[in-house]
């Protein structure tokens, strides 16, 4: 029996049965509890940047539970027992596709406000797998996942290009950037956004690692930490990307994998990877801000004071959902003399609007720009001219909207300002870990 359905308007046929099977596969007590718990109070809308930016009730996060809930009710509910529970339809999937992909960054603000504690981001992540199985999802997001598998990175950064790029950056900036070192304590990974659009971040990370005397390396076997397989709902690609980093770590003997300035890369490798592989990771995973904070605590990071006024955007997967909110502040403490917190900040900060792969979806550009108005207001209220972040994806999202609005503020990277203020006169002795 064919499960493919094709609408009359000639749109690509989709596999409703495959989506239903994926949604019904989410049978853990965790997910089913969430599905059954929503009391439709609507408080999640107050926390969602897509609702706040558009005031469109369709963007109420509670509605993102509905497709999965409908699939479950059609299988097991009192109405299903008497054959009256409607099944999930192609129309349901098509009409909600944008709610699952374009207008959810899985930022977790709605979870914070939900009186029932429902983790909508977890539901959306599994729903994306179902929609992808049906053949739905933004084509550019799906293409980024495929490019990750086939070329090594979503932006086409092949191992050869990585090697060229590193060689060029090392020469241009007179900094040692090790690649494929035989033995290293730390494997540093990249986000292809940095490599292709913000290469100064790669140089900054290298300078900081070298300054602290860390025995580190990049690896051409596994370098891309942004996991578009995960974001696109393509678990097989997600697994491939994780396995590459696991293999690269094993090859160098590293005990620590450091994720660069990318929030979702951190969230996936730090918390999802072991669950996707079905086994614990044999190394620790640290975000670059966490790792640099460790170095600072050990007295291995000496910085010259920075007097420029700036504010900090918390990447959702590092702060709110990552548990590393304090480390960025610790790095700034005693170094940035005019650091101004925005409001709300830390765990409650507004999302940039481009997380969860939304940045890669061309058709979501308009709604991203609307969301950025929230960030512009936050920044302007601080009086600071510069906005920095510890996520290159947030940075790219914000840079694009900055250009869209001709916003006259600077947007930068935490790692880069730290590297720019290294105090090499008081350089700590090279310390092997």
């Amino acid at each position, binding site marked *: 029996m064919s499960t493919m359905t094709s609408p009359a308007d000639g749109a690509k046929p989709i596999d409703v049965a495959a989506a239903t099977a994926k949604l019904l596969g989410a049978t853990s007590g965790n997910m089913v509890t969430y599905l059954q718990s929503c009391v*439709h109070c*609507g*408080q999640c809308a107050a*926390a969602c940047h897509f609702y706040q930016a558009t005031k469109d*009730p369709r963007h109420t996060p509670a509605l993102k539970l509905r497709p999965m809930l409908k699939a479950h009710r059609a299988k097991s509910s009192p109405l299903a027992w008497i054959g009256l529970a409607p099944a999930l339809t192609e129309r349901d999937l098509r009409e909600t596709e944008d709610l699952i992909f374009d207008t959810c960054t899985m930022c977790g603000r709605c979870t914070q406000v939900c009186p*029932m504690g429902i983790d909508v981001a977890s539901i959306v992540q599994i729903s994306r797998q179902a929609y992808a199985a049906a053949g739905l999802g933004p084509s550019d997001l799906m293409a980024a996942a495929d490019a990750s598998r086939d070329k090594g990175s979503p932006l086409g950064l092949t191992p050869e290009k990585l090697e060229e790029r590193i060689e060029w950056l090392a020469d241009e900036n007179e900094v040692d950037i090790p690649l494929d070192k035989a033995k290293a304590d730390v494997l540093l990974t990249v986000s292809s956004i940095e490599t292709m659009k913000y290469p100064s971040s790669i140089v900054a990370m290298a300078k900081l690692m070298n300054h602290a005397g860390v025995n580190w390396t990049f690896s051409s076997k596994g370098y891309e930490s942004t996991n578009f397989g995960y974001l696109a709902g393509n678990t097989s690609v997600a697994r491939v990307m994780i396995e590459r980093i696991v293999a690269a770590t094993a090859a160098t003997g590293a005990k620590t994998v450091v994720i660069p300035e990318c929030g979702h890369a951190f969230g996936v490798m730090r*918390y999802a990877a072991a*669950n996707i592989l079905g086994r614990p*990771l044999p190394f620790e995973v640290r975000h670059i801000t966490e790792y640099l904070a460790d170095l600072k605590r050990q007295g291995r990071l000496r910085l010259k004071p920075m007097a420029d006024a700036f504010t900090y955007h918390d990447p959702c997967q590092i702060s709110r959902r990552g548990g590393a909110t304090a480390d960025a502040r610790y790095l700034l403490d005693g170094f940035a003399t005019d650091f101004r917190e925005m409001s709300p900040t830390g765990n409650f900060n507004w999302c940039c609007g481009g997380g969860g792969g939304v940045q890669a979806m061309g058709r979501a550009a308009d709604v991203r720009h609307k969301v950025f108005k929230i960030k512009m207001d936050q920044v302007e209220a601080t009086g600071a001219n510069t906005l920095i972040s510890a996520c290159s994806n947030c940075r790219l999202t914000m840079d694009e909207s900055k250009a869209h609005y001709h916003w006259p503020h600077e947007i930068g990277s935490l790692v880069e300002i730290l590297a720019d203020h290294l105090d090499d006169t008081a350089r700590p002795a090279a310390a092997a870990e």
Partner: protein
Amino acid sequence: MDLLDFARGPALQIGLYVFAFGVAFRLASLLLLPRLKDLSAARKGAPGAVVASGREIIRRMWPQSVYAEATRFTTINGYIFHLGLAIIVFLGTPHILFLKGLIGVSWPGLPTNIINGVAVITFLSLIAALVHRLQSPVLKAISTANDYITWLVTMLPVATGLLAISHLGWRYETLLAVHILSIAVFLIWFPFGKLMHAFLIFLSRGTTGAHLAHRGAQL
């Protein structure tokens, strides 16, 4: 058998059985599902699942200050009718006597005029909740039949209770019978609709508490 006998007898009994078995079935069907074991390394110093769940159940009793303004009406009005219902059910003398018949123990109740006052406030609070649901574009968009049926079966015992104590409309015995029947309907609907949140709240809050505390996320 007159209407009052029917309400006090078979109707209430059926309501209690459906409530007890329905709630037990739904909870068992959830608790017997496998729980996801998080294989990622817990953040150093993260509390265990039980402690984290307990903390989150308590912490979410009031919204974080960032969300206080946006959630003010729902939170305050929600507390008014939830507490109102609890006071009426557990501290109204006729209800205590009914509960004594069920579980064998009793406790002192509040004076009738106080209970009546609480019932009026609860009635008005439930009206406000419905008006809010009908006026808010967000609530209109996300509301289903479940929300309106649940509102109705919650409102009916309050409204019929008020009519009974006011001796308005029918004679007292008929009003009392209708009041008891409305409670039977409430109990029958309980396991099928969103009234189940009275139990599910502990499971969903606890699940998220354990999930995010593992990461060291401060909710």
